[in-house]
């Protein structure tokens, strides 16, 4: 642990030492990229990224880089699952079709252990390539530190700070009839859940059958108190792991990376997980991270924990009839454990493929993407977004947004967000553990069995050793 801290500190210090003298001069040097890109003008780089509303906005900015530098960018956007499969296949094959590929934080463990990511240190140290105005100190610290560095080397800048937020129907939570009924039943005021226990009460309260009344109107179909991701794979388990288990004081692994799933805290969190599933739509075990916002947008559930970047695509006039009727909040904490709250996040980086034939031009592009100027532009053009820089919170598009609770919720999540542990067998672990999350959620397995079986799977997959990569 000491070594890990030291290595990171050394890398950060080196980066800062290179950058600090120049950032203090606040060189908003627009000509840097034009100058730095000159030797690479005419080069074509291929970049693979995930398609979300954020990248759709970004794709409008990318041509500016081409104009500035003369470097042509073939910018390919694929859906969440495709970008993982296609990107990893390209990197692992050594084919080098893509020069840069977006990796979710969770993919870093396997890709680092395969040695297919190019470290950036030599480019960062090269004054011809390193943007003096980069100001890495402005990056939201913990996601950046825990994602972009490993073993004292830098593998990327932070690109996407995907994060979970609490999402609820404000029109229901503020309905006078519902408020009175809720208070009469639970003894406290109805409002966005601040604790997991409140989220459970709200879920129970709003779960209603067709024909019953909701906000004074008879329901034409069943209504559900909560919707969560429950599909095998995806981010089902990370939701359970961070938003529930960690908030209950448990964890997947201990400080040394050893399996630590068979604990009372995990059992308690699994019990809550199971209970919440009884208030969710029958198809919850089929719901992916795309289905959850769709269900919320269709107005058949009262609340959810969802990825904020997907929320941006739903809570828009013309997309959902309930747009503008939603409210957001921090991920509910365990009652009594609010001081040690956790929120699921997936800080992600675009890395340079070790097989890339144009690493310098690609580095310039990645640097340009993460620069304050482009990030500001991205937030303004997208009328919001998910910031990677602290300074972005003060931008008018966020500060004066029509949807202030969403950005406050994002900030709350990112304040405590961290990258996932870097594990070589992350995909196997997540696949197996998401199966357990499903079986516990569906009541096919008790929480105690789930904790025991999860522990056994972790021990088996990690071979009785630490599950994390040695640093």
């Amino acid at each position, binding site marked *: 642990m000491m070594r890990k801290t030291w290595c990171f500190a050394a890398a950060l210090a080196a980066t800062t030492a290179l950058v600090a003298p120049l950032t203090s001069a606040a060189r908003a040097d627009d000509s840097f990229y034009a100058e730095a890109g000159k030797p690479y003008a005419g080069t074509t780089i291929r970049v693979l990224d995930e398609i979300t509303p954020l990248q759709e906005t970004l794709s409008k900015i990318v041509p500016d880089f081409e104009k500035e530098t003369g470097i042509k960018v073939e910018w390919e956007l694929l859906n969440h699952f495709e970008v993982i*499969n296609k990107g*990893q*296949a390209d990197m*692992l*094959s*050594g084919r080098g079709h893509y020069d840069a590929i977006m990796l979710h934080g969770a993919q870093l463990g*396997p890709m680092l*252990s*395969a040695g*297919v990511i190019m470290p950036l240190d030599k480019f960062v140290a090269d004054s011809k390539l390193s943007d003096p105005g980069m100001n890495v100190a402005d990056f939201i610290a913990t996601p950046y530190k825990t994602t972009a560095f490993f073993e004292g080397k830098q593998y990327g800048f932070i690109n996407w700070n995907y994060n979970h937020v609490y999402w609820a129907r404000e029109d229901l939570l503020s309905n006078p009839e519902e408020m009175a009924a809720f208070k009469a039943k639970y003894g406290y005021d109805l409002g966005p859940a601040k604790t997991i226990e409140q989220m459970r009460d709200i879920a129970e309260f709003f779960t209603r059958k*067709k024909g019953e009344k909701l906000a004074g109107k008879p329901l034409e*179909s*069943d209504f559900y108190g909560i919707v969560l991701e*429950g*599909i*095998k*794979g995806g981010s089902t388990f990370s939701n359970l792991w961070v938003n529930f288990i960690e908030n209950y004081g448990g964890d997947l692994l201990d400080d040394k990376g050893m399996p630590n799933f068979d604990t009372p805290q995990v059992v308690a969190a699994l019990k809550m997980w199971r209970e919440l599933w*009884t208030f969710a*739509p*029958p*198809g*919850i*075990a*089929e*719901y992916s991270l795309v289905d959850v916002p769709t*269900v919320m947008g*269709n107005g*058949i559930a009262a609340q959810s924990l969802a990825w904020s970047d997907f929320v941006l695509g739903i809570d828009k006039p013309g997309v959902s009839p309930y747009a503008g009727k939603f409210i957001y909040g921090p991920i509910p904490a365990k009652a009594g454990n609010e001081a040690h709250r956790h929120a699921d996040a997936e800080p992600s980086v675009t890395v340079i493929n070790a097989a890339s034939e144009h690493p310098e031009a690609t580095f310039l592009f990645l640097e340009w993407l993460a620069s304050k100027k482009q990030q500001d532009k991205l937030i303004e053009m997208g009328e919001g977004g998910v910031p990677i820089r602290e300074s972005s919170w003060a931008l008018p598009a966020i500060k004066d947004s029509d949807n202030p609770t969403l950005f406050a919720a994002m900030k709350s999540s990112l304040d405590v967000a961290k990258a996932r542990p870097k594990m070589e*067998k992350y*995909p*196997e672990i997540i*696949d197996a553990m998401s*199966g*357990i999350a*499903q*079986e516990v959620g*569906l009541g*096919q397995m008790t929480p105690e069995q789930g904790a025991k079986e999860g522990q056994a799977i972790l021990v088996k997959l990690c071979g009785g050793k630490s599950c994390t990569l040695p640093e």
Partner: protein
Amino acid sequence: MSATTEAAPAHVSTPQGLRERVWYPYILIAPSMIMLVVVSLVPFIYAIYLSFHQAKFGRVRDFIWFDNYATLLSDERFWNSIGVAATFVFIAVPIEFMLGLIGALVLNQNVRGRSVLVPLLFMPTMMAPIVVGLLWKIMLAGSWGFFSYNVLERFNILTDTSVFASPDLALYALIFVDIWQWTPFMMLAFFAGLQALPLGPYRAAAVDGANPVQIFFHITLPMMTPLLAVIGLLRFIDAFKVFDTIYILTNGGPGTSTETPSILANKMTFEFWNIGEASALAVLVWIAFFAFCTIFYQVAKKRLNAF
């Protein structure tokens, strides 16, 4: 033989001479054999090679003898996938077989509108598996599925779960989808076989006063046996390898309740990048099939006069 003919071997360029060479047949089949070797045999041999190596993240490392096989054979998940596939095949294929045969016999009775009915019946089989998967997702998805919403929810059936979200139901739903897709294929294949049967034995049976049941068991079934055996075997192999519809509808879940060897192999390869073990799985499944098909071939050849 004339003198001219005897002299022919000296002129190997003549078609007649060429045909008398022993290697002439091999020249004719060479293009397809080369294609088969390149496309099929080389990757398969490479898979066998990989199965004896530690191959992870696309890198082939140490030769590890049978370690991948031992790991796989001691893995509950592997045996679960075999069990899932066996359940799938031994329920789906016999039902498809029976329904297909019954349907073919009905079609063979000069049903009115048969020329319209046959192409319509063939539609599910003509659909790409990915389309079939999406179609049934739309029908049976929890809450919003067309059938789930309009039938299951309306009549309070499965109120606390959905078909594909239930570990008890998901596999049977997939079996139902397979039956829906492949019964028409069986039906039309059998129908084609029935149409090709000679009329003589039927005329003789009619003269002898045989009833329809006797005709079926003593004339139709024996004459159809080779075709039934071949189609049944092909469908059996195909059903065991099912991938697309399961991938779309459940991806092996909930838990591992619908995880077949194909789904598991895909995960091992493209999610876990554990190519050594995935190759071992592929080889094991191939060995099992080879053994089964060899036995089936011998039995069908000797006892059923098929092949």
